[in-house]
């Protein structure tokens, strides 16, 4: 009896004070679960990943199988759940295969470019002086390179393919993160707790890793999610320029691109809206849920943030 009373009292006290209990990781997890949209985002993204990476194993049709008996078949027609395109490719199958590439390109290039940006930004902000100047001028140079002519040249040099598109998006994607992280590092470097840590005899590397990096992470996570959407979208325009994913291999981007010729209807007067809608819908769902996820992660990682519920 006494025990349960004590327990009740503790629960009550916790409720009143609003102070959460548990280790840091547990708290982060708890807070994340409270964020409904973020949970939705996580579930949807996991489903998408399973759908695109495992799904094709259960389907007999390959992405480049052509069904000439069903050209421009609308969704829900026989054998073609989401319809077919101008040469009888099954849209459903291509969405699955295309998702593999789009997600792979998006995730790898945004994560790698964020990591590069994070490291360079931290170094630039913390070291300051000549290093800061050199690195920031390099960022300026990278930002001032006109992207498309360079992409055309790169496509000639490296050819097209998943690897080269990931590389290009990474090489040209880290600068914004760098500037952001550098700015934050500059202000955190002058913060009193960094000073306090110095007066306790902490060395520079540990100050960067233990005091500055964790404070930068929440912002970086949000930027990564934005970068991810950007990467998925720019993959489509790069494919159009001949760098990246070439038909018949599908990606959400080049499926969307391919449908552009029929957006005003085909020569026979049909309007194959499903060719535009489904790739667009999947890109939209992915980007939206990545942003939900990023939002939830940021809030969960910030100990000061207490959810309203």
């Amino acid at each position, binding site marked *: 009896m006494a025990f349960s009373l004590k327990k009740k009292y503790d629960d009550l006290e916790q409720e009143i004070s609003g102070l959460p209990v548990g280790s840091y990781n547990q708290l982060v997890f708890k807070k994340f679960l409270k964020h409904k949209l973020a949970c939705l985002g996580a579930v949807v993204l996991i489903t998408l990943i399973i759908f695109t990476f495992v799904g094709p194993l259960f389907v007999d049709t390959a992405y480049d199988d052509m069904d000439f008996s069903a050209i421009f078949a609308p969704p829900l027609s026989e054998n073609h759940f989401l319809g077919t395109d101008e040469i009888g490719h099954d849209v459903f199958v291509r969405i699955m295969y295309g998702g593999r590439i789009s997600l792979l390109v998006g995730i790898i290039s945004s994560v790698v470019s964020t990591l590069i940006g994070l490291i360079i930004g931290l170094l630039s902000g913390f070291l300051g002086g000549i290093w800061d100047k050199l690195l920031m001028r390099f960022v300026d140079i990278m930002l001032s390179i006109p992207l498309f002519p360079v992409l055309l040249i790169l496509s000639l040099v490296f050819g097209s393919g998943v690897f080269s598109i990931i590389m290009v998006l990474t090489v040209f994607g880290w600068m914004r993160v760098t500037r952001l992280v550098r700015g934050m590092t500059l202000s955190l470097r002058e913060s009193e707790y960094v000073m306090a840590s110095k*007066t*306790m005899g*902490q060395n520079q590397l540990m100050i960067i890793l233990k005091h500055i990096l964790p404070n930068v992470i929440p912002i970086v996570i949000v930027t990564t999610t934005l970068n991810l959407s950007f990467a998925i979208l720019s993959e489509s325009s790069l494919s159009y320029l001949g760098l990246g994913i070439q038909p018949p291999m599908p990606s959400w981007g080049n499926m969307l691109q391919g449908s552009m010729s029929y957006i005003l209807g085909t020569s026979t007067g049909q309007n194959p809206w499903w060719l535009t809608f489904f790739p667009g819908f999947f890109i939209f769902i992915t980007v939206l849920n990545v942003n939900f996820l990023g939002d939830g992660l940021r809030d969960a990682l910030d*100990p000061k943030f207490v959810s309203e519920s």
Partner: protein
Amino acid sequence: MENILTVKDLSISFKTEFGLVNPVQGVSFDVKQNETLGIVGESGCGKSITAYSVIRLLPNNAILGKNTQICFEGENLLNRSKQDLAKIRGNRISMIFQEPMTSLNPIYTVGWQLAEAFTLHREMSEEEVKRESIELLVKVRIPEPEKRLKEYPHQLSGGMRQRVMIAMALACSPKLLIADEPTTALDVTTQAQILELINGLKRDMDASIIMITHDLGVIAEMCDRVLVMYAGNIVESAQVFELFDHPRHPYTRGLLSSIPNVEIDKSSQKRLSTIKGFVPHPANFPKGCRFHPRCPHAFERCIQENPLLLPIKGQSDHFSRCWLEEGTDRT
């Protein structure tokens, strides 16, 4: 008593767009064992950077003077390597800051930050760290220490945070504690508690303190000896009672007379007296005595030459930097 810290001819200059500015010049002082030395002055007098120079944490563009010497427990800190200095910081000299709200990292628990303070200088197991952290929190009078260890800085009040800061500073039982306006950001009742706490801990731990403040009340409460700084110079130094009873330098007198006193002012309907003007920017300290533009007693010589910090006649430990001493007591 033995000197634990000796600073000789400390000059600090910065390269800026105005050229070389010199916010601290020719400052010499020492701190004896078990002593609390107060450094008082208006904002911008060079108090804080004097203190930072002791633990060698000046900004990178700071240049120390050629004849500067900083000796701590007999070793010259100026020719120490970075690693050596890191071993001294936090271990033998530590620091408390003005702003308890921002001096703790918001993303770590109190326990984590205390553990950092411990493990930087000592090899300890996790349980030892926890046990000693709790002991330390008890020492700085934080209630429910076990619970507090798991809390984040934003869950504590200002006074609590300052206690945690003090606990961190004391983790390795330093010989010298530098307190940079430790109570400025706190409300008055909390201020009194924190000062009392620091005083008590000093007695227990056998440490010396450099107390930087612009609050003469804090000085009266805490210090044994006082340095009054103005525009990068020490203008007067004395034992605390001597300074309050017989201030010599016009700046010290000005500071003392600008303490508000409810009773006297009410009856006489007098306005609170102030020192007119501002502390000059280090880039344009005036020629001659740096206080002369604001000094009510300034005369010709004050504009020409800066006086030296010399003992007042008949007293070995009361120094003043003023030409007025020349004609009267000084020979």
